């Protein structure tokens, strides 16, 4: 069985500061890390590897530094790593990102199962998984909280939907996106770190992909465009009360009664 996991390198903290005057992001000194949601996708794939003898690959898109997350995946037990990196992929929105990843996955091999995390901590869109599935023409199931059975031709999963838990059988090849807390991700191992330190990562540029039309990638391949970024505007009216605990409690109690909450 052949499994590929999509991972992303994200800023190490979501507490990115914004310069209130210029609206510029202050990213100085912010370290990068693996998107935490991807750890559940990796663990899901590695558990299957243990149970069924699958080969597990990871793919990521980003600058050359993004190779760091591939190395981290090696330390967890992943067999092969692929990095999509090209200036012509720059400025990609969800669509162009998903398209590039789908092209990279096609280039990387034939996979029975593609596993994604629920979302990333920097984009928070949760859209890339389903879009990759569409571009690859394979079924997808999202909100997977448990893998029930890994069969020869299909995987059976349990999905966490708002009204119910749904059990579905999905034929290979297919894509699943894993919920947070669907499993307990393993820690990177020092032994594997040593064993994989020289393992090569295959780097794909646009020229390695089946579709080499640059207008399908990066900013040109992105239907959505950011017009402006700005710090959020706070609510219009607000009062700040200072004083002793008892005094403040009394004022709040009166206010809540006045507004008919109590």
């Amino acid at each position, binding site marked *: 069985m052949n499994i590929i996991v999509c991972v992303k390198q994200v800023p190490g903290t979501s507490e990115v500061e914004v310069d209130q005057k210029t609206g510029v992001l202050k990213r100085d000194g912010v370290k990068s890390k693996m998107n935490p949601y991807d750890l559940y996708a990796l663990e899901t794939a590695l558990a299957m590897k243990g149970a069924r003898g699958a080969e597990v690959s990871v793919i990521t898109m980003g*600058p050359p530094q993004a190779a760091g997350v591939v190395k981290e995946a090696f330390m967890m037990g992943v067999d092969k790593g692929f990095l999509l990196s090209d200036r012509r992929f720059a400025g990609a929105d969800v669509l162009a990102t998903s398209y590039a990843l789908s092209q990279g996955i096609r280039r990387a091999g034939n996979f029975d199962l593609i596993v994604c995390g629920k979302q990333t901590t920097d*984009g928070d869109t949760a859209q890339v998984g389903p879009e990759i599935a569409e571009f690859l023409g394979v079924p997808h199931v999202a909100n997977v909280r448990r893998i029930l059975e890994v069969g020869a031709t299909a995987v059976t999963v349990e999905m966490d939907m708002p009204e119910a838990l749904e059990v579905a059988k*999905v034929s290979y090849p297919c894509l699943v996106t894993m919920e*947070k807390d669907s499993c307990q991700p393993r820690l990177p191992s020092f032994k594997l770190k040593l064993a994989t330190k020289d393992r090569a990562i295959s780097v794909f540029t646009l020229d390695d992909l089946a579709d080499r039309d640059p207008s399908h990638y990066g900013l040109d391949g992105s*239907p959505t465009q950011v017009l402006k970024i700005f710090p*959020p505007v706070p609510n219009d009216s607000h009062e700040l*009360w200072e004083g002793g605990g008892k005094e403040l409690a009394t004022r709040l109690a009166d206010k809540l009664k006045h*507004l008919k909450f109590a």
Partner: protein
Amino acid sequence: MASIVIHHEKVADAGALLVLCPFGALELSGGKLSVNAACKMCRLCVKKGPPGVFELVETVAAGVDKDAWRGVAVYVDHADGVVHNVTLELIGKARELAAQIKHPVYCLMAGSDVLAKAKTLLDYGVDEVFVYDDPGLRHFRAEPYAAVFADFINHVKPSIVLVGGTPVGRSLAPRVAARFRSGLTADCTSLEVKDNTDLIQIRPAFGGNIMAKIHTPRHRPQFATARYKIFSAPEKVGNPGGKLTRMPVAPGLLASGIEVLEVKPKAKEIGIEEAEVIVVAGRGLKKPEDLGLLRQLADRLGGQLAGTRSLIEAGWLDAKRQIGLSGRTVKPKLIIAAGVSGAIQFVAGMKSSEYIVAINSDPKAPIFKNAHVGLVGDLYEIVPELLRQLDDKK
């Protein structure tokens, strides 16, 4: 091909320019500046750099004929015919947008045995409800739902498509947007439309500390999702004049590699999204047992207890009680945030609340900017006294 071009002859001190890029995409190789794959095309280097050094060179591709796409469509999210409230809220927003550009409002509903329910949507001023009703659509499955959605879009050619940010919507909308190779903006907190029918979408970005204003200038339809309780549900109209159209479901549309084997109902609990009053616990709480104090306050006000991301990650409360971008969006009549600092991811999930009270001992806590009333003080002094006062003068 759009790209950033560096005019090296105008560069005085190349090393000093590296800090211009917050994404670290500028690098020096052999004393020469270059742009690497980390570039997000944010154009900050063009705007903030020395004049003439960085230039964005763009070849503008021809876009679609915008007049060929008419209408604001809403995807009807439902569970066995019970329409999710987010759908009504989106119908309200769709009517607003449509009125401005004089377009009709459409709904798309897919399911099994849902015709009667679909008809009730006309009460909210929808011009035409399109229904795909077939036993094969009983359960949400990605490919058949995407197929009827695409069929609807090809038939109607709407300019704007709004989808609720529910588990189904978040799984379906990207699939359909990718099929039309068009843009989808997730979790919009504000939607406006320009006279040329371009949808102006605002959403929290980069982890939520910043807002992004996004448009889709060359593609149609323009897809956007919005979470529950971001917009307001409309009143019913007096004399609904819209019509219901049942669409044929060709067998080919139902092909799928997914087979739903079992649907196990979950225990029904009142979610924080339905609560009219919410008390939120933040990091100012010292230990898990102290949640009892805030639960008491929530009970006293007939509300629910919720928490911020850090508390949920520490395992103090169930994830269903998390407010924020990665949790739930709430819009109660009253929200009391106790010991909550007010990270913007949190604020994004509650800022539409009608009345916001914040209790925090740090006068500089960002939550105060969003609170209608901010109490600078110790929650351990204020809350017990508040409970006494509320019980005193019933």
